């Protein structure tokens, strides 16, 4: 059975290797100090999609990412591993989106470019925001079932999918009719390496947004290649292309308002030493309850 699969991927700053200059003095992420990478759990998601493609001839895997021009890198990286192609969702109107506006934009793009999607697969969460909200919200907006914390797809046939989920203290096996949305956990199989023939084939693939301002594909080296090989032009979609409602996009569509960002530096003088005694443990619990850290 051939499937139409959409993989949602995000380019993120590599927060796993944070150096001393990772944050600006203003308390925002210093993106120039952190390399931009393929969000790790989105790679796990891509692997699940590619496995289904291996097992089901005729399956297409389309990657959708939202971001600036350089985010097209994740689409290329996915193509190097076996994705058929992708779309960069890019527009000033999408800027400043919280998870609600992001999921709105992604869901309109999915409806526009892969209206007959059987599966939409994304990572559990991105390592920059750590919300784990986008996948489930996309499912809601598309009116589809969702399976979160996917660890392994056990079976996918006759319009049904069986999935092993990673839950607290064990695993759970669930089944859903297609189409549905999966979010994949980092404990799922790691993504396959880049394939050299695919790298050789797609290494020059570019989204129009990646071109230097005022230039076109005709100005690039090997310009004739872009005319001869349509797959070297990565799909690009604006707000208008996907008929998105501007009020629901970007900052305008984002109810989340960041009040302040604080850079917390723990200092030794603020620390306390607790013993394992009941008294100390009770004291700590009371303190955490009082500060609403737990409870």
């Amino acid at each position, binding site marked *: 059975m051939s499937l139409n699969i959409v993989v949602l991927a995000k380019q993120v700053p590599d927060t796993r290797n944070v150096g001393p200059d990772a944050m600006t003095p203003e308390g925002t992420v210093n993106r120039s100090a952190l390399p931009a990478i393929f969000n790790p759990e989105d790679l796990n998601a891509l692997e699940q999609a590619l496995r289904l493609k291996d097992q089901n001839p005729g399956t297409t895997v389309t990657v959708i990412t939202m971001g600036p021009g350089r985010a097209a890198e994740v689409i290329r990286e996915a193509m190097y591993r076996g994705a058929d192609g992708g779309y960069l969702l890019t527009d000033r109107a999408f800027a400043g989106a919280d998870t609600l506006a992001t999921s709105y934009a992604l869901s309109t793009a999915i409806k526009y470019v892969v209206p007959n999607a059987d599966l939409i697969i994304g990572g559990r969460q991105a390592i920059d925001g750590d919300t784990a909200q986008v996948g489930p919200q996309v499912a809601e907006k598309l009116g589809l079932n969702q399976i979160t914390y996917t660890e392994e797809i056990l079976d996918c046939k006759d319009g049904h999918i069986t999935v092993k989920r990673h839950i607290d203290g064990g695993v759970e096996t669930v089944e859903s009719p297609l189409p549905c949305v999966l979010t994949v956990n980092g404990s799922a199989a790691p993504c*396959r390496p880049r394939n*050299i*023939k695919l790298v*050789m*084939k797609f290494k020059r693939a570019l989204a129009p947004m990646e071109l230097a301002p005022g230039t076109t594909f005709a100005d690039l080296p*090997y310009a004739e290649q872009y005319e001869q090989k349509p797959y070297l032009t990565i799909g690009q979609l604006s707000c208008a292309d996907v008929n998105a409602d501007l009020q629901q996009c970007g900052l305008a569509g984002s109810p989340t308002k960041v009040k302040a960002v604080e850079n917390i530096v723990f200092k030794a003088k603020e620390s306390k030493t607790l013993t394992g005694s009941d008294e100390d443990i009770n004291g700590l619990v009371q303190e955490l309850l009082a500060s609403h850290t737990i409870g």
Partner: protein
Amino acid sequence: MANFYTDIPEIKFELENSSLMPRIVELKERGFADKDTYAEAPQDYADAIDNYEHMLEIVGDITANTVAVNAEAVDAEGPHCENGRVRYAEKTYENLAAMNKAGLNGMTMPRRYNGLNLPVVAYTAANEIVSTGDASFENIWSLQDCIETLYCFGNEEQRQKYVPRVCAGETMSMDLTEPDAGSDLQSVMLKATYDEENKCWRLNGSKRFITNGDSDIHLVLARSEAGTRDGRGLSMFIYDKRDGGVNVRRIENKLGIHGSPTCELVYKNAKCELCGDTKLGLIKYVMSLMNGARLGIAAQSVGLSQAAYNEAIAYARDRKQFGKAIIEFPAVQELIANIKARLDAGRALLYQTARYVDIYKALEDISRERKLTPEERQELKAFNRLADSFTPLAKGMNSEYANQNGYDCIQVHGGSGFMVEYACQRIYRDARITSIYEGTTQLQVVAAIRYVTNGQYANVIADMEKETVRPEYEPIMARLKEMAVKFNECTAKVKEAADNDFHDLCARHLYDMVSNIIMSHLLLQNASKAPELFGKSLQVYVNLAEAEIEKHYRWISNLTPAQLENYKQA
């Protein structure tokens, strides 16, 4: 993230900085004839080099982050023999899966058979990098290179049947050695008989010490001419595991390369196909197979030397004694500088050899498609000779260096190096086989010595002396010329003696002399182009080489035919 290609700029230098490279790419790509047919084919020279770099970056990534990480577990577990089959160590399968998903198979094969059409230089670099991660895995992965022999000497039907399978990741082995036929392959007795009824050949007998002996596709050396006892009665056969008939009796328990299964094989009426013509098995096909395999061992050895260097320097920076890191002590500095110098010199020799092989192999392949021009025939002949004369130097010297570097790497570690917790002991054990298999160093000397006496190396060195070098390296060039004078003097003395035993006893010394001189020149050329990368190694290596030349010069000068008796023990 670690990457065994991008972390080692010397490899990129070797890939790109040779005046031979444009010719290699042009020949291999047939003037870029594939560019409109295959999406992955390069458009021009720069595009081809870019492709090679992408390939090596993937190899470097997989090797650093999968193969090297798995190496300790693979070494500890090793392969198992179950019901006549080999089961690799668990993590070996993970390594193989990564290489296969990345499409790193059929590296040098033409695109029409799904190959990557890479030159030997690029494949050699990949080979070296894999070996840095795990030399035992390099064995399994690099045996794909046997397909080159099947491609060269098999018929079109066989090419179409087997080459795409290897490109898809099926593994290979070369079944040559038998209990009574090691270095002396003329004594091979595995019997090949023609089965008139089924119109196929059958194999009966056994083989020993077969690396990756349970592979998917075997090249087998067997005696097809009943009643013969020498090399002219041997032919080469292709055994397809899908046909059955060959079982693994046992896997050897070895000192090193634990992950690589070394098998004893039993052939019971195994169906096989003749590859090429009968009687040419040893004298033509195995010679070709061995030359490729020897270059492979040279690459494996360089990879091990790189691993020894990585481990030694990391430990020396980290380990503190007497209040400072041990890398600050001259005695330790010398150990590490020597490892690096031998590594850089050996690597330069490896790639120069690979380039020679590339040009002659590509021309040879073109000659199957069309008649070569007289100029091309000359070129083929010259590069074939260079390849044949350099291969035994690259294999012998790099394998000896890998051993020395592994030894010195342990020495840098002190007592900790003797403990199995550190990788250096695995490198040391793995290196030990490199100077033995695919022809011992002593047999590399036998293969090389004719080029000492017929003047081939002397001519190569004379050409190298004409190269322009950076002005600050002129004094080094002068020293190299002095070294060549001593080598020529020794060669003359040995030839004048006209005594076979005297000649054979001096051979290893002449071999070492000529290798040291050639490597010094190659390093000098590299340092002239990139002093920041090779300047230190050049100075260190020439100091070593000059001392070696002096040693051998004294040794040969002092030897008289009358002394030969002293070297004979009853």
